[in-house]
């Protein structure tokens, strides 16, 4: 069941058709997902204070209802290590259309996965698991199931991925916490069932999966067109 705050966020977001990233992160963190430490700021002083509290290096992203694809307008800067670059990024973002703030994220490590959901007309919420970055864009290395998911589904989905050996520690790399991936995906499928009246598609891209945890680094929730 969705709590009242999540419902409020979703209702409000219907005005522009998708959920702003800080709001989306709030939804996921309230629903028990690991999210990076983050802050939304507007002014240089706030930015510096927040970045120090989170600890460098950080990732910064534009927050604007007019910008869905942040990287297309260079609205994402990763690996910021000092105040000067942080403030420079903020100044640039302020000139982008619809600027309402800058999101400062803690850097998360691990393997880049994508978890997604599509509200299919015939079958309802479908859940996707894939490897992020080129894995999804070029190799289309994905697996798809109808929600809700149980553990055996999730195990099958992981094994279906061509790059599955990367998860278990390929060529001496440290393995990803498989149980954390499973738990995150099952929790995601449950949340998508709860949100099925609202969303059209959701990308958690990337979900950074390490030895210990899976962190939802970026979340995009596209809402159903109800108007």
């Amino acid at each position, binding site marked *: 069941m969705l709590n009242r705050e999540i419902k409020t966020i979703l209702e409000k977001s219907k005005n522009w058709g998708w959920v702003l990233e800080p709001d989306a992160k709030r939804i996921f963190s309230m629903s028990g997902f690991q999210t990076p430490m983050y802050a939304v700021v507007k002014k240089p002083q706030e930015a510096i204070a927040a970045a120090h509290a989170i600890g460098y290096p950080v990732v910064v992203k534009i927050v604007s209802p007019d910008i869905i694809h942040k990287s297309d307008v260079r609205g994402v800067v990763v690996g910021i290590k000092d105040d000067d670059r942080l403030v420079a990024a903020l100044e640039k973002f302020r000139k982008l259309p619809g600027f309402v703030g800058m999101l400062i994220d803690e850097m998360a490590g691990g393997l880049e996965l994508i978890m*997604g959901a599509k509200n299919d007309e015939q079958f309802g919420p*479908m859940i*996707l698991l894939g490897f992020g970055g080129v894995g999804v864009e070029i190799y289309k290395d994905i697996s798809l*199931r109808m929600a809700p998911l149980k553990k055996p589904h999730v195990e099958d989905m992981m094994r279906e991925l061509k790059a599955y050996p990367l998860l278990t520690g390929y060529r001496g790399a440290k393995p990803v916490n498989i149980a954390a991936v499973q738990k995150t995906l099952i929790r995601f499928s449950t949340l998508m069932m709860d949100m099925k009246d609202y969303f059209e598609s959701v990308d958690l891209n990337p979900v950074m999966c390490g030895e210990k945890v899976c962190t939802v680094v970026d979340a995009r929730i596209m809402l159903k067109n109800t108007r």
Partner: protein
Amino acid sequence: MNLKPLLEPKTMAVIGVSATNERHPANVIFDKNNHRYPVEVFAVNPKGGQLHEETLYARIGDLPKKIDLAVIAARAEFVPAVFTQCIKAGVKSAAVISGGFTEGGREDLQDKIVAMAREADFPFIGPNCLGIFSPFHVDTFFLPIERMIKPNNGSVALISQSGGILVDQMIKFSQQGVGMSKAISIGNKAFVKEIDLLRYLMTDPVTKVVAFYVEGFAEGEGRDFVLAAQRSPKPVIIMKSGKSEAGHRAVSSHTASMAGDYASFKAAVAQHSILEAANEQELVSFCEVLSVYQHSIDGKTGIITASGGHGAMAVDACVTEQMSVPELSPDLKDKLKDAVSESVRTIASFGNPVDLTGSATDDDFVACAKIMGASDEIDCIVFLLLPYIPGVTLDIGVRLSQVCKKYKKPIIAYVPHVEKYNMMIDGFELNGIPASSSIEGAVLMAKALARN
């Protein structure tokens, strides 16, 4: 929803039978059922009168018996009025053959009859369909009897959104010797849908396999269908058309672009243990094999052949289809060796495939099938028959079928399908061993048994 009166009616009214136009669909339906099927059939025409010796009843209410099924071939705009009469007269169900509803831009008419049916609990099939072919009961297809190719009576039920595809599949089932228990054309599926028929057929004693040709599901209908199919004790097969994505829709996320309509369909279907047939050939093959063997296997395939080339091709097909062709244990190889005749023993190979060469006879093949049948190393035998080798006789099919029954292990045969070998093919098929016309087809049949 009680579908028995619809699918196995004892009494039927055909609405719209013409006194003058012999080729009217309603006349064709009336003629082919009258005196040919056990169903008692009455003709209705608002003008009344006679058609040859038969009375044309002016109103459904005038009919001398309670009616199980009304077949309606009247023009779309008259159908609501016919429904009113049917419901008032206590008719139990209908097949609406007429077109001109949603598919012709008259959604309002369709909505109207659906609302009437829902209120009166009056199940109907269609509109815009051929209706029901139900051996020993009824045939509402408006196709002249002399032009239809009827498959054998059997245990496969096929439900189709398209009447044309359904009739074509009946031809293919007939060619392949696959028997059918029902063939149902559901057209616009305004009221009776796939899921309703699936639920009925799950408990139908004659039906062993339920197959569907689907173009698409309405909102949420796909989810309900796959969940119901998963609970089916009988194998469910589905063939889909409209797999290509229409145009380049603007999609706003990675997930939406990769989880397209067909990708979602495919994933949802496989996840719920429904077997998807990629094309017509697979549909017929899957139906054939599953109508004979319902138990699922792990897919440890043993191959018996008289030609190394055939064996190699079968192995390739197994690998492509992710079926295992396990290496046989030394013990099993020895048993096979001991079982065959002296002359074959020295030239045959006893790996997997077991290649008995062109010198082998029925006895050699049967002996090897028995040993594989009794072994846990193999859970399915693909038998590649070369009908032209001299040691093979017409008895091979029936003898292998006895092995199959004794050890409860599926055997699937490959036999080239040409007229000359028809008696051999019958030897397999009439004795319960599916026979494919290609090596790949035989392997696909085995794969169908390995569904989870």
